[in-house]
């Protein structure tokens, strides 16, 4: 067990980070900086959503972007076609993503390891290719690879459009906080224990009456819903959605890499991964301009290799041991 002193240290760090996060737009008012922080929080949120199922079930999905893309399109299309507020639209989009997760997950969760991973890629690629090559579907313009622009309304809560970036900052911050709270809740709930049992030994879990497919599916649905909300946020923030950025394999890989480098199967790991990795991308971009494409992905690749080899539990593992929150890990031999 941890000592009360260590637990208080952890809580104090958490509180300090939370206070800093809430006050940040007052401390630094540079628009570019806030934009970068919003992207960090967006990736932290997406990695946390990915982690909700993959980190706990121990399966690697490289197709999560499909949930982001589909929900984003649902949100944007509902807004363009019917004028439905993106606030409701993103819930609808998340629900569609969750339904899609059942359709994809039900057959796929029978597969293990790399087979599961390759199938998630295949499903995501099918939908991405379909969106890229479909101009209109049932009379609804999708505009293929070109993507859809969200019409500019002006500063309006109902339209999810704001002058300046501060509002977006607080929205994504709240999303991240909710996603982490949901993960923390899940860890302590029956679902969390079931998922860990499935990760440990799927057959043994099944023999004890825990259906691996059923509980993995429940977690995948929640994860897909959260990923969908993130995709809708991304589309609203840039007022633009296209299949490649919102649905492509690059986004799936980003989510997975950040969660794994940070520490999958933990509440704070994925956000930590995003906090460490995304600024790398931004710094590379500002140092070298647009001239050097892909440099940040080289760094991601190297960091991923090093993390998997030397820190399979993620960067959070030594950090949490330092703070003394690593007691759970130590109990497991």
């Amino acid at each position: 067990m941890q000592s009360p002193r260590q637990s208080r240290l952890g809580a104090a760090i958490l509180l300090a980070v939370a206070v800093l996060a809430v006050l940040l737009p007052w401390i630094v008012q540079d628009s570019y900086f806030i934009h970068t922080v919003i992207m960090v929080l967006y990736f932290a949120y997406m990695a946390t959503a990915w982690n909700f199922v993959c980190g706990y079930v121990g399966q690697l999905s490289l197709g999560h972007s499909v949930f982001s893309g589909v929900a984003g399109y649902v949100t944007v299309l509902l807004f363009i076609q019917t004028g439905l507020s993106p606030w409701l639209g993103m819930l609808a989009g998340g629900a569609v993503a969750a339904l899609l997760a059942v359709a994809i997950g039900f057959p796929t969760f029978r597969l293990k390891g790399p087979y599961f991973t390759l199938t998630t890629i295949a499903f995501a690629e099918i939908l991405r290719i379909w969106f890229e090559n479909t101009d209109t579907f049932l009379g609804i313009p999708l505009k293929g690879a070109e993507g859809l622009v969200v019409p500019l309304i002006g500063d309006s809560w109902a339209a999810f459009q704001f002058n300046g970036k501060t509002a977006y900052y607080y929205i994504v911050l709240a999303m991240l906080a909710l996603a982490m709270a949901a993960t923390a809740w899940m860890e302590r709930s029956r679902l969390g224990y079931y998922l860990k049992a499935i990760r440990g030994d799927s057959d043994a879990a099944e023999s004890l009456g825990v259906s691996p497919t059923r509980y993995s599916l429940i977690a995948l649905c929640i994860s897909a819903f959260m990923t969908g909300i993130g995709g809708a946020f991304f589309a609203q923030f840039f007022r633009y959605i296209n299949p490649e950025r919102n649905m492509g394999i690059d986004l799936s890989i980003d989510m997975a890499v950040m969660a794994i480098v940070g520490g999958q199967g933990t509440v704070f790991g994925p956000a930590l991964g995003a906090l460490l990795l995304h600024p790398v991308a931004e710094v590379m971009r500002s140092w070298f301009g647009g001239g050097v494409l892909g440099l940040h992905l080289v760094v991601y690749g190297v960091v991923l290799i090093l993390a998997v080899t030397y820190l399979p539990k993620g960067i959070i593992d030594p950090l949490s041991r330092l703070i003394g929150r690593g007691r759970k890990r130590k109990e497991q031999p």
Partner: protein
Amino acid sequence: MDPLILFFALVNGLLVGGIYGGIALGLSLIFGVLRVINFAHGSFLMLAMYGAYLLWSVFGIHPYVAPVIIVPALFALGYAVQAWIIAPLFRRERAMVVEPISALLVTTGVYLVVDNLVLMAFGPDVRAVSVDIAQESFFLLGLPVNVARLIGCVAAVLLAWGLALWLRRSDLGRSIRATAQNRDAATLSGVNVPFIYNITFALGCAVLGVFGSLLVAFLPVTPTTGLSFGIKSFLVVVLGGIGSIPGSIVGGLLLGVFESVASQFVTATSAAMFSFGLFIAVLLFKPSGLLGARVAKR
């Protein structure tokens, strides 16, 4: 549908499919022995294509001569990647539960590094070698057959045959097969398993050196060429049964014909959707591959 066009699609599909099969050989071999899915497989092919392109554009070396340099280079690269990057996972594995996901993740890291280094070096532009053979065709039963594709297809079949023979007859081949069957028993019989792993991975990459050179003769290359071929290789290997050498060629032919015929009915990009659908269907309903029975006997 005009039967002549369909027949043409069939022939062309077989030619391209043979090349797919040849490209997938290495992936299948590596998985069969190391149980590692090499996500960077396509990236190594793309590197080989750029290598052959550079040899042509800088030194004027014909792509068909390029394998003399590219194959050893890819062999060395594969050896290095396995020995330095993937092997540490195996060393850790002894104490821990086997995690095939870790190997997949590490090779995903290699894919990110290789693809983006090439992107940085060459930019996103399309590079193409212009040699006469790309345009040459002869007529067979009134149908044009592209010589460069035919050479690629024949090379794939010959390489697969040679590789299977070598695995069956040579001492090293025997060690490789022993390691694939039972790593511990092979170790006990005096096989240096880590070395066999390195050699197998290197071989799997060296094969790509051949096809990278043959492909670049008629196919332009961009940094993203690798991923699409890599994903096709997964398709091929799953279709033919993972770890099976003849299965790889048969899977390639199947995919080639499927793609080529499907693209007569829909656009080529949409045809890729059906290939992924086929991939999912095979994994779900016949995960041992369409030639699964033969794999079991192996």
